[in-house]
């Protein structure tokens, strides 16, 4: 009656594929994942996208906890694990079982890096996520601290948020300085994780197109024996048109 316990240690046996991206804020991982999604869809693959900390169940609570600044390293970690569990069950497993390609923006490795920096036990957070399934491909977008900061401050997200900057850790009263210290600690955690779990390291200082080409090449190779299942034809207009490379004029 109960499903067999999933374990992070072994590869999954579902017909679908799970591809995830990791990296610090400003590494460009979300952009790369979006471009990968466009490409896969244009190749007629059924793609499902899911992102960190987005389940309806938990998002509201996390927001409340962040606002009142009462989150501790442990409740912070547990809330994200709850969100992850809920998404795994509702968003990741069903499409994988149906044979789809699931793209995840951040995965358990984000928790391994961030939560360890916040001060929870490294062993504990790994055991906590033991119910997760191992991705088929995991990309780590490696970027030097300064590049990430330039991208964040100069670009799309002008303001650094309290928890993103690790202000709860009391590293520095200055938000930018706190962000710098916090993220550089996360960077060194990621370095360990890359070795521990064999993530594919991408040079995130390269041009967007160059990175994307490399990513597509690697994904192509990994999908050689993958047989996509056909659902509906052209379920979304944009996908339909992209497939025939017709410019949408009207």
């Amino acid at each position, binding site marked *: 009656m109960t499903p067999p316990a999933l374990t992070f240690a072994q590869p999954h046996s579902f017909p679908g594929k799970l591809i995830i991206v990791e990296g610090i804020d400003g590494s460009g991982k979300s952009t790369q994942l979006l471009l990968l999604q466009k490409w896969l869809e244009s190749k007629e693959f059924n793609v499902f996208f899911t992102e960190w900390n987005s389940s309806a169940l938990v998002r509201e609570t996390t927001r409340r906890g962040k606002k009142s600044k009462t989150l501790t390293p442990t*409740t912070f970690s547990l809330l994200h694990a709850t969100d992850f569990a*809920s998404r795994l069950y509702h968003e990741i497993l069903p499409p994988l079982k149906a044979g789809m390609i699931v793209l995840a923006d951040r995965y358990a490795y984000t928790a391994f890096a961030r939560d360890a920096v916040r001060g929870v036990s490294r062993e504990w957070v790994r055991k906590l996520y033991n119910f997760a399934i191992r991705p088929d491909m995991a990309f780590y977008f490696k970027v030097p601290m300064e590049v990430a900061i330039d991208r964040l401050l100069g670009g799309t997200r002008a303001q650094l948020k309290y928890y993103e900057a690790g202000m709860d850790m009391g590293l520095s009263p200055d938000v930018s300085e706190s962000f710098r210290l916090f993220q550089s600690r996360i960077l060194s955690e990621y370095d360990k994780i890359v070795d521990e779990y064999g993530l594919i390291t991408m040079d995130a200082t390269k041009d967007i197109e160059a990175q994307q080409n490399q990513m597509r090449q690697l994904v192509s190779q990994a999908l050689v024996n993958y047989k996509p299942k056909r659902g509906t034809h052209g379920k979304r207009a944009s996908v339909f048109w992209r497939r025939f490379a017709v410019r949408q004029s009207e």
Partner: protein
Amino acid sequence: MGNAHQYFGDGLPYVNLSDLKGKLIAIEGTDGVGRSTHIDLLQEWLEVQGYGVITTGWTRSNLMSKTIEMAKQGNILDRWSFSLLYATDFADRLEHQIIPAMRSGFIVLADRYIYTALARDAVRSGDRTWIRNVFGFAVVPDLVLYLRIDVDTLALRVIETKGMNYWESGMDLRLGVDLFDSFKKYQSSLIEEFDKMAEEFHFQVVDARKPPEEIQSNLRSKIQPILTNGARAPELTQESPAAMQSLPNEFPTSPLKP
């Protein structure tokens, strides 16, 4: 204070337990067994003796109580989210209520403790390792009082009082055709888990089928030995005049107090 407090597993690396002067007493037992009634009486009894007491209850954290209610209404919980929501609630109370209170020397009466979560998860999954690892950050209580009851008596008692509800009947598990059927199967499995843990974690077992007065005096006699001035405290079976001896003891018997 005598023996130092410990974590169950990996613990909270950023919280030192060496200065926890208070005591942690957990009251466990399945739904409808009368835990909260007895906790009220115990609190009164302890306060009369001059002990500072706080109580903490399952799902009552500021952070999570609303979320858990919402989740329950949706009935959409998978095993992991179900257990992790409770773990988050527990962590919030542990760090914001239980540990600070113990640091200030309070006696903490916990209405349910992690054993409830361990039992519920084990019944749902058959796997005991993961959930125990998750709760590795919990502090081991000084005493666990287990109000034990058999499922037939429990079923009668619950019907007589508040009635059976969806979650206490484990309806999410589809164990039986109706509420009663499901309730009995679910609660039997829980009791079985509690019985196993009673041995493993050295619970003090109290027969919850006895009359309330008897249960209460049983609970008190099991708490007495861990109290600071336990050796000299008078026997309190009722609200006897001896209960008025409530001045704080300025010279605790424990020689280890710094």
